[in-house]
């Protein structure tokens, strides 16, 4: 059995990617399970999706903590502790990242175990071909090819089926197929050593004690601590203020849903990047055109 775990951000097409892979493998005659896991977060936040593909009936359920392939749909997740993308990474496993960086860079930067890091700038191909950054078909195509679970025909049929079910228009679907085939052809099949259960030491079940309040009762005493969550990781584009053009009208300050823009003592707006989600309302609302956007590239 091959276990694939996708990581991405809500709205990026990660669930659909897992479904395309699932359907493609299903069309090839495999036993398949696919499932998304939504957290509390809404669009923009990290999400996970899973595929199990097997020649035998699948006797597992739920989240995959021991993936054979980890597929990262958005490189920014590598820096996002909440996304927990490295869980279960191991020697011999495959770590696929959608990025423009080299594989060696990622291996070193994150001190990964001896896993096979494969990189590909899926977003770039998708934006160029489809015009949008939803990587469902392209990411699925890469994984189809790497795992060798589906040929082109099954892949194309799976993309059609899944993208139709989320109501994409035929022309968009065709562009997605085009982009997916480009990705498919760039990848090659990689032999996979699948995970074997090998108990070193079992989990230790403990007897949970009773705790008096405050500990035993789920009350939050902290104030405003969501700041620690660093939703700045959600950003695909970054708003940058050009202070030479800024006329200090304050519109951006009253337009940011997340309260990430404050005014300094001279009434210039200042963006708090740690949590700015990159919605770009500020950019769109600034009539002086003093806010520019930059594609977010992580400074690793």
């Amino acid at each position: 059995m091959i276990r694939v775990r996708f990581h991405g951000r809500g709205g990026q097409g990660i669930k659909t990617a897992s479904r395309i892979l699932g359907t493609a493998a299903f069309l090839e005659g495999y036993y398949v399970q696919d499932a998304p896991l939504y957290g509390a977060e809404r669009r923009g936040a990290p999400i996970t999706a899973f595929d199990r593909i097997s020649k035998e009936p699948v006797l597992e359920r739920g989240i995959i903590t021991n993936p054979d392939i980890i597929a990262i749909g958005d490189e920014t997740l590598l820096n996002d502790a909440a996304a927990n993308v490295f869980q279960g990474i191991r020697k011999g496993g495959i770590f696929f990242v959608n990025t423009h960086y080299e594989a060696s860079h990622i291996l070193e930067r994150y001190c990964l175990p001896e896993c096979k890091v494969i990189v590909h700038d899926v977003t770039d191909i998708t934006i160029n071909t489809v015009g949008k950054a939803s990587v469902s078909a392209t990411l699925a195509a890469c994984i189809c090819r790497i795992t060798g679970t589906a040929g082109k025909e099954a892949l194309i049929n799976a993309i059609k089926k899944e993208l139709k079910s989320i109501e994409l228009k035929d022309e968009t679907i065709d562009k997605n197929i085009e982009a997916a085939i480009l990705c498919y052809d760039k990848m090659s099949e990689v032999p996979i050593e699948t995970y074997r259960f090998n108990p070193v030491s079992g989990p230790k079940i403990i007897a949970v004690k009773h705790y008096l309040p405050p500990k035993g009762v789920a009350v939050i005493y902290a104030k405003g601590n969501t700041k620690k969550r660093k939703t700045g990781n959600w950003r695909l584009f970054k708003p940058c203020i050009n202070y030479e053009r800024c006329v200090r009208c304050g519109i951006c300050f009253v337009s940011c849903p997340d309260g990430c823009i404050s005014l300094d003592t001279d009434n210039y707006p200042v963006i708090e990047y740690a949590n700015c989600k990159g919605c770009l309302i500020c950019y769109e609302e600034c009539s002086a055109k003093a806010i520019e956007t930059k594609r977010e590239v992580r400074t690793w």
Partner: protein
Amino acid sequence: MDRAKIYKNVKDINEEEFVLPGTPLCAGCGGLLALRLAYKVLGQKVVILNAAGCFTLLSTYPYTPFRSSWLYTAMACGPAGAQGIRDALDILIEKGSIPKEENLKVVVLTGDGSAYDIGLQSTSGAIHRNLDFYYICYDNEAFGNTGFQMASSSPYGSRTGTTQPSDAYPMATEQQKKDLFEIWRAHKPPYMATVSPAHPVDLSAKFKKASEYKGPKLFITLAPCPTGWGYGASRSNRIAKLAVECGIWPLKEAIEGKLKHTYIPKFKPVEEYLSLQGRYDHLFKPVRNDFTIKKIQKGIDRYWAPFLKLTSCKR
């Protein structure tokens, strides 16, 4: 807390933040912006009663974006919860059990699914009991937290997860949006208003005005929802402004039931508003559904006709 005596322009808006960044809500959530702006007038001595909805997720243990108190309750009973807190604070202060400096403004925060449907009875009860509280409904015009299914707040002609367009239903949602404002108004509460996050001055002025009244102070804010409405997050405010300018989202208030529009729109064709949102795509593509578009426009015209004749509408 809010230093401004009156709100004339953006500069009057309080710089202090009460809803801090890092919430799990969608990027570009219009409802969150409205809440942030409202809080700037309400100040810090607030307890929020959050009925189940998208905003449930604002506080997900162990995190909260608030500097003040918050309680999550079920979908049907936000105002009932507010009643308990208000009454408890009143009686504890009256009995001298707690000092009056500990008093709080009680604010119900609910989505439209709760406000228009499952929570309406509870709201009606609280207004009837003249409960001294604020009520903020962020109206994204469907059950947003469950993935955008039809609610009685969903407008005619819009697509939701349970009202997909089909040959038999080319308009998608066939019912008209329930007029919650008028239902409330029939109760004659001291203050009620509609607001929009893209009209921050109007919004702030209304919250300020509301604070002068004891009793129910009810707000419905348009909550542009990139996720459910199908548009790029950056357009939330642009769409909110269009909703106002096309006249589909009238900005108004009612004091003890007496209605007044606080802004007369430019009456742009509603198409401009509709065509920016995925939830109305089926009205334009693959073939244009003139019947439905016209019907929406007519609904707006019919709504405004009587008011445009009255002098109470000031520009």
